[in-house]
């Protein structure tokens, strides 16, 4: 099953505006993470929220998690042109044996100066 499907697929906003990206998943999780990827670069971890947490903040980032709806949102406040990147949510499936973090398709954010 697919995990961590983000929407919208693409988002274009003006500098200073807030950007909200959503992520939905299908199976139970232990935690959910958000990553950022600048074009052609590696992924950079932004924030991790555990399944027993509902909201978490880090600087201009705010992440919420609703396990009943199997969804999460990432809010970037007062966006800057440098926030232009793709943002991925990633979930760790709860199962025995091995372990893996599964990424969604990402939201491409473009912040216009």
């Amino acid at each position: 099953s697919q995990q961590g499907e983000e929407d919208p697929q693409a988002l274009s906003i003006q500098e200073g505006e807030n950007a909200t990206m959503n992520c939905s998943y299908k199976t139970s999780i232990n935690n959910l993470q958000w990553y950022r990827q600048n074009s052609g670069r590696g992924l950079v971890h932004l924030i991790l929220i555990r399944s027993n947490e509902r909201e978490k903040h880090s600087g201009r980032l705010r992440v919420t998690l609703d396990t009943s709806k199997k969804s999460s949102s990432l809010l970037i406040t007062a966006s800057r042109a440098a926030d232009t990147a793709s943002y991925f949510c990633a979930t760790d499936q709860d199962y025995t044996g091995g372990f893996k973090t599964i990424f969604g398709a990402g939201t491409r954010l473009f912040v216009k100066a």
Partner: protein
Amino acid sequence: EPEVTQTPSHQVTQMGQEVILRCVPISNHLYFYWYRQILGQKVEFLVSFYNNEISEKSEIFDDQFSVERPDGSNFTLKIRSTKLEDSAMYFCASSEGQWNTGELFFGEGSRLTVL
């Protein structure tokens, strides 16, 4: 700041050739991963590795793929006989703890082009 390093940054190969992508994870990390990203698409899990053995692999990671930790620092991905559809960016990642305890640290990727 410690980082995951990958080589080569870009490799061009002919279909059917063997390719080895190399990674040096962060030194005190115990868990290692390979992901791939076809241009503009999602980041796909390939394999996770712990204690010198594969912990989990995806359906993409078929018999053409193998991973190895030949020494105390390198972690390699081998594609035995490359296909056109193997063209992608391959990312190595490592983590200090197990998947449910923290973040993955990614390298900058190795772009593989199969002609």
